[in-house]
């Protein structure tokens, strides 16, 4: 009943959303007006395309995020067995985090952690 349950939950969610959408589609009224389907921009027609290349200011953060997210994946198994392994695990993880911490400190020093 473990892993089938995941599928079950997935299906329940999907069916729930689907049914409600269908129901709403049936009962909700429909009306047509030429400007109604325009995207909302404070009542003014949109100028140009929406999907332009969008300049995001957190590119470096995203790269750092990848590094640290992978780190967390490593940390979870360690955390589970930390109690049993004792000192060895602690020292290992201190070294592990030290290296990552140095990386973070370097990024900080290089002003990579400043949004621009």
């Amino acid at each position, binding site marked *: 009943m473990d892993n089938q349950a995941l599928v079950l939950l997935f299906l*329940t969610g999907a069916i729930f959303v689907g049914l409600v959408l269908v129901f709403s589609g049936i009962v909700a009224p429909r009306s047509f007006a030429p400007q109604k389907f325009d995207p909302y921009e404070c009542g003014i027609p949109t100028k140009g395309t929406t999907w332009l290349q969008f300049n995001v200011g957190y590119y470096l953060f995203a790269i750092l995020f990848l590094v640290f997210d992978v780190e967390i994946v490593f940390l*979870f198994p360690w955390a589970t067995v930390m*109690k049993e392994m004792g000192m060895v695990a602690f020292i290992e993880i201190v070294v592990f985090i030290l290296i990552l911490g140095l990386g973070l400190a370097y990024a900080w020093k290089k002003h990579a952690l400043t*949004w621009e």
Partner: protein
Amino acid sequence: MKFSLYDFSSFTAWIDSSLRASMSPGWAVAVEMILIGIAILIFYAIVGLFLVYAERKVCALMQNRLGPNRVGPGGVFQTIADLVKLLFVELVPIKNADRALFNLAPFIVIIASFMAIGAIPFAKGLQAIDLNIGVFYLIAISSMGVIGVLLAGWASNNKYSLIGAMRSGAQIVSYELSVGLALVTMVVLAGTMQLSEIIEGQRWGWFIFKGHIPAVIAFVIYIIAGTAETNRGPFDLAEAESELTAGYHTEYSGIKFAFFFLAEYMNMFIVAAIATTVFFGGWMPFHVYGWDGFNAVMDFVPPLIWFLVKTFFVIFLMMWLKWTFPRLRIDQLLTLEWKYLLPINIFNLLLMAFLVLTGLHW
């Protein structure tokens, strides 16, 4: 056959055995599945409606208002009335929107919250899936909902929505880490990732007491990051009413909007439920080692009540944050995560490991 409010495992076992006695095993499993699905669906709806009402009342009282007070006694049916209204609102298809993704987004946010809710232990034995990597699973699933937000913003063909989506991207790259690290800190203390075992481990003291200062720090970080994960409160940049009108869900009307709305509250519930499980002992009553009389009194309160009270306390904290603070700006958001929460979190993790190593955690 005896079952009590205090231990649902006997109840579920009774259902299981009686079903198996009356039909073939395959059918029994199928019926059980449907029962679980319906139970979760009902619970989901009730909690969602209640939370919306609670939020309105809480914020109204904080703002010297009455809040909803017209529909039903004290306005309790207000959310139901709203739901009915939203059901009957036209679903406006937006010109040039990416229709497939536009319609997919509400599915994703709702499914993500459904899957997370299945893993939460509401009481002893009242848990749809008790995974041995429960904490890990919850982190993975709860980050799925943000994808829905991103998709919604992208697919809307609306400039406000797009900016909202980009901001929610920034939120993903920051607050996932803090949630993860804060929970890792507690896993170190618990020594297991299975949620039921984590709760069992808190029989003689909840982790927030057991873990001393590192646990408190982890809790504070978890609440901050959890609020950010749910796109709420001071971290509602993706929505940012005064800047982006409604952010990622500007173009969603009627019941599609309601799904985002519902998902936001359910995510809040999930974040609070995880916090309850990991920090406040889940459904475990408040026990003090040695005080048998006191413990017996505490045991008298059903675990489900314990769980819900604790969860709503955490939810109240999050509402309190939302209705007090101004919104962060995007660079502040990233600064807070990368310059404050992350270093403190890493240090806190080492502190906790040291605590566990030296046995100071009681």
